């Protein structure tokens, strides 16, 4: 058990270092872009040199790169003041910057968008794991039979249909063409506002997103089970006289758990950075849409923030998976 504590501590330390490197890399890349961040603060068509100069000082863009990066980093921990005196705007920690285009601290924009994306990703994850793992098992168990063929057809459709098409079809047939459809056509309702309405507004996005992933997982789980079934220890389990159900449920699936958890964790982390297409089709104000509008408007502080947050989620998820691995696979705990 001592080894496990050391392992986790080391992994945590490594994660902090990686996050630091990621934030630095993102910051460097965006400082190299051929845009003057100060000029962008007053809109695309603004060229009042007075305002631009004032904003440059206010946002710290007049300072050397290292100072800017330091201000950004320290802002994450203690908050940051933009400007001085009466015109100053304070963004509390963790401050990712200030968006002049949306007139808001970036952190509060993230705070609005992230929960929406989390709801979307969690619901979809649950749905696609149930469908994908279930169908994968059925498909492997009835390999070559009609159930396997049907599920292969599902996999083919699911992997080839792009999410925006699935989403639009669902909207056309279940919202627009269906009189008295229970699903709202006007986008997102927050759960604290009206939980029933929230669920209704999320069902179609969940299905849309889960559909594509469920297909991939069906294929993955099927091939995992078939591969593990040829392992020597499965033959041992059979030779012991265990029933097919116990062999599948206890021996085969236990061995398939590690790769499935890894894949699900990484896919989930990727989605938390924003499911751009699904959010766009269903008009959900999540991370994907926040990034998309930021890119369209060249809202640099928001782009930097969403990029770093998305990367951080992946890095942290990798750490969680590594630690989870130590619990799943006894060979990792030394």
């Amino acid at each position, binding site marked *: 058990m001592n080894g496990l504590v050391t392992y986790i501590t080391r992994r945590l330390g490594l994660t902090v270092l990686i996050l630091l490197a990621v934030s630095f890399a993102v910051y460097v890349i965006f400082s190299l872009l051929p845009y003057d961040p100060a000029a962008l603060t007053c809109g695309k068509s603004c060229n009042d040199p007075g305002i631009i100069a004032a904003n440059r000082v206010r946002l710290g863009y007049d300072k050397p790169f290292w100072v800017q990066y330091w201000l950004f980093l320290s802002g994450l921990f203690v908050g940051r003041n933009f400007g001085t005196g009466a015109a100053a705007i304070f963004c509390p920690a963790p401050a990712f910057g200030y968006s002049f285009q949306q007139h808001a601290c970036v952190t509060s924009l993230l705070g609005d968008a992230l929960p929406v994306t989390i709801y979307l990703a969690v619901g979809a994850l649950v749905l696609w794991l149930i469908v994908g793992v279930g169908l994968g098992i059925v498909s492997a168990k009835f390999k*070559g039979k009609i159930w396997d063929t049907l599920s292969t057809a599902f996999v083919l459709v699911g992997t080839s249909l792009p999410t925006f098409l699935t989403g639009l079809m669902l909207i056309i047939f279940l919202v627009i063409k269906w009189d008295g459809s229970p699903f709202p056509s006007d986008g997102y309702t927050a759960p604290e506002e009206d939980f029933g309405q929230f669920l209704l507004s999320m069902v179609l996005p969940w299905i849309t997103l889960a559909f594509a992933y469920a297909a991939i997982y069906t294929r993955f789980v099927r091939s995992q089970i078939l591969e593990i079934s040829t*392992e*020597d*220890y499965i*033959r*041992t*389990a*059979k*030779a*012991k*006289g*265990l*029933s*097919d159900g*116990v062999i599948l449920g206890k*021996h085969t699936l*236990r*061995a398939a758990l590690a790769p499935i958890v890894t894949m699900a964790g990484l896919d989930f982390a990727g989605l938390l950075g924003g499911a751009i297409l699904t959010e766009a089709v269903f008009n959900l104000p999540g991370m994907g849409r926040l990034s998309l509008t930021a890119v369209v408007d060249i809202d640099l502080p928001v782009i930097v923030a969403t990029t770093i947050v998305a990367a951080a989620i992946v890095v942290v998820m990798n750490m969680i998976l590594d630690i989870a691995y130590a619990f*799943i*696979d*006894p*060979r990792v705990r030394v």
Partner: protein
Amino acid sequence: MSLLSVRDLRVEFKTPDGIVKAVAGVSFDINEGETVAIVGESGSGKSVSNLAYMGLLPASRTTITGSVILKTDEGEVDLIGMDNDRLRKIRGKDIAMIFQDPMSALHPFYTIGDQLIEAHQVHNSVDKSASRKRAIELLSLVGVANPEERLAAYPHQFSGGMRQRVMIAMALMNNPKVLIADEPTTALDVTVQAQILALLRDLQKQFKMAVILITHDLGVVAGAADRVNVMYGGRLVESTGVNELYKNPLMPYTVGLLDSIPRMDQGHGKRLRAIPGQPPSLIKLGEGCAFAARCERKSELPEGRCDVSPELNEVKAGHLVRCHLYDSKGAAK
């Protein structure tokens, strides 16, 4: 009536290239407390013939015919064609198996204790603590030190030899009547091989079980078996007591096998001989003698004799051989 009686066992696999006749009519018997070694090179059908009646081959692509009669407490039963649920109750209880590679034969994610207890629980409706006691008892019997502590260990925390001991303990959890040992020492160091074989011999006496020892190594057979069945091309080609086999091998293939292993009782100067050629393809196997293409004594027989398959004949008491050199119509010596 012997404990296990295999009659005209045939196993065929459907493959994209054609039908593979992996086992083409094998018959043998094994009595209580006896050890029968099944010897042959890769692809001779020695493993497949035993996996087949255990129901451990993929059912969809395999055709098994013949009969395998086992004497159980409930009378004699034929394992061939038995429905899977009944066969399952015999597997691991009346007939247990150990395999070649103990590294991969144990589940890497479960403790030794889990796996041993599971083997006992599936055939006995007793308390888990009773199974646990049995597991500790058997682990100490096979020579695992501190068995009670070791129950909580995972397979990767054991050495290869120790893992094979655990496999043996697991196979013996339910006092099997027959133990099938499929190349139990092949993956182990030579020094460990001897220990495992000695252990198997000891346990066989204690448990009064029959052992089917599948191996390609005639060196392993010498000290371990009572009777030896030599297989070639999916058939038995020679079957006799172990002493008779080493003293008086008849079939040229057996002679070749014995010439290819070093022997203490022969001079150092003698070179080991290899059998020329390759094992036959089991798809294209024709009517004639399967060994003819590699046989060094083929010329002693009249032309065309080897195009007819020889029968397994008893040439003297307890010594059966499938070879035209020893049948009445052949160039009998």
